[in-house]
């Protein structure tokens, strides 16, 4: 008989003590999320999501339909952090960037749960601190680093969170993510491909040489990663 794969979980939920888990489990609904699905507009929050093996991008919206990615959320985090800060609306748009599963909870139930569950509240606050580090890094990175370095960083961050060396996306999408023109991304991706670091075909990017990609990525990648692994470091 084939062993049933242990379901992957979400880091914030897995810290919750055993005795609280049954109640929590009743409030969480497993959902399957598809690429491009909008989980949250920059408005009232109805649900929070704890990604299990999907990946969600957070965008700060601008007029003229432009949006720039300011953060990435995977199984280390959650979508809907304003609720944990006592705020019922979101200032960012959350879009599924890698299809997969997540656990969903209603906003009101989540707020009640925070009052009952100090362990969860503390780990979420800690996560918010890490998310702020990520946003901070993105702000600085946007101001300073080359498209190629940012492209490399983004591919690595996405691949880490998807636990896969294959990333599905088009140049146009990546350009939007990085807030640059498409041609800039095409040139950068072409350079990476010529160096044999990635392979690109029809919307699929495969990371062939993660170590080399890390060298090309700006320092931001390593710094955010280190902080997630050791928040007090």
């Amino acid at each position, binding site marked *: 008989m084939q062993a049933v794969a242990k379901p992957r979980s979400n880091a914030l939920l897995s810290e919750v003590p055993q005795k609280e888990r049954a109640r929590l489990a009743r409030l969480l609904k497993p959902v399957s999320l598809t690429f491009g699905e909008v989980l949250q507009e920059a408005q009232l929050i109805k649900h929070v999501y704890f990604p299990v093996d999907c990946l969600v991008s*957070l965008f*700060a919206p*601008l*007029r003229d339909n*432009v*949006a*720039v990615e*300011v*953060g990435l959320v995977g199984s280390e985090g959650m979508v809907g*952090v*304003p609720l*944990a*800060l*006592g*705020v019922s609306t979101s*200032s*960012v748009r959350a879009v599924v960037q890698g299809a997969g599963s997540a656990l969903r909870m209603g906003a009101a139930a989540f707020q009640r749960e925070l009052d009952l569950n100090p362990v969860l509240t*503390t780990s979420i*606050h*800690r996560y*918010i*601190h*890490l*998310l*702020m*580090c990520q*946003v*901070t*890094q*993105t*702000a*600085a990175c*946007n*101001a*300073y680093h080359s498209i190629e370095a940012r492209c490399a960083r983004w591919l690595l961050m996405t691949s880490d969170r998807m636990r896969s060396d294959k990333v599905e996306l088009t140049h146009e999408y990546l350009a939007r993510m990085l*807030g*640059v023109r498409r041609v800039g991304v095409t040139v950068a991706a072409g350079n990476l491909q010529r160096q044999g670091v990635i392979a690109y075909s029809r919307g699929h990017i495969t990371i062939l040489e993660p170590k080399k990609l890390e060298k090309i990525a700006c*320092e931001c990648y390593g710094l955010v990663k280190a*902080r997630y692994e050791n*928040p*007090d*470091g």
Partner: protein
Amino acid sequence: MPTPRIPSLNKLLAALPRDIHERLLPKLELVPLKLGASVYEAGGKQPYVYFPTDAIVSLLYVMKDGASAEIAVVGNEGLVGIALFMGGETTPSRAVVQSAGHAYRLSSKRLKVEFEAGGALQHLLLRYTQALITQMAQTAVCNRHHSIEQQLCRWLLLSADRLPTNVLTMTQELIANMLGVRREGVTEAAGKLQDARLINYSRGRITILDRPKLERRVCECYAVVKSEFDRLLPDAIAR
């Protein structure tokens, strides 16, 4: 100029209920913040948190090569040191005084005790955190999309909103560091604003002369951040 001695000059402190306010009062210490001084270094410990009254502190991200970019400004609407109660023992950014003035400082230990007790202080600081996240996210977008002149306008307006006066004490070099651009870029943008009589710049002092016109030139990022602060911290921001 008289030294501000009333903790209510910081709007977060002012928005606290009277009992908490009175409990904290003897623990608050007014300290001068000198232009360019570092309040925290990135990765450093934070023995105190700071509630600015008439100073502005920039949260800067410092790159490996020493270049820095501003990710948020904190003035009399907020506090410097939120990593502390959010569970990060050290701060990811550097905090530098970008407009000289004063702040009330409180020992981190004391703040943590008050925060963990829950209630109004916790509620207020968490909401402030959300407003700050919005400011950081918007800065990330602004750094990518908007001109130096627009960024400068944003920066001037956000700073002026956080000061009791319309005079900022600072140098163009500091502004260039804040915006992550070269000094010449800032000089040119500031020159244009001065020629149009929106600001006056002389010897390290920038005076805002025509606020409405500045608001017309600024990118949308200013309004996004301002409305988020107004909405989340109405008591702390009401001017």
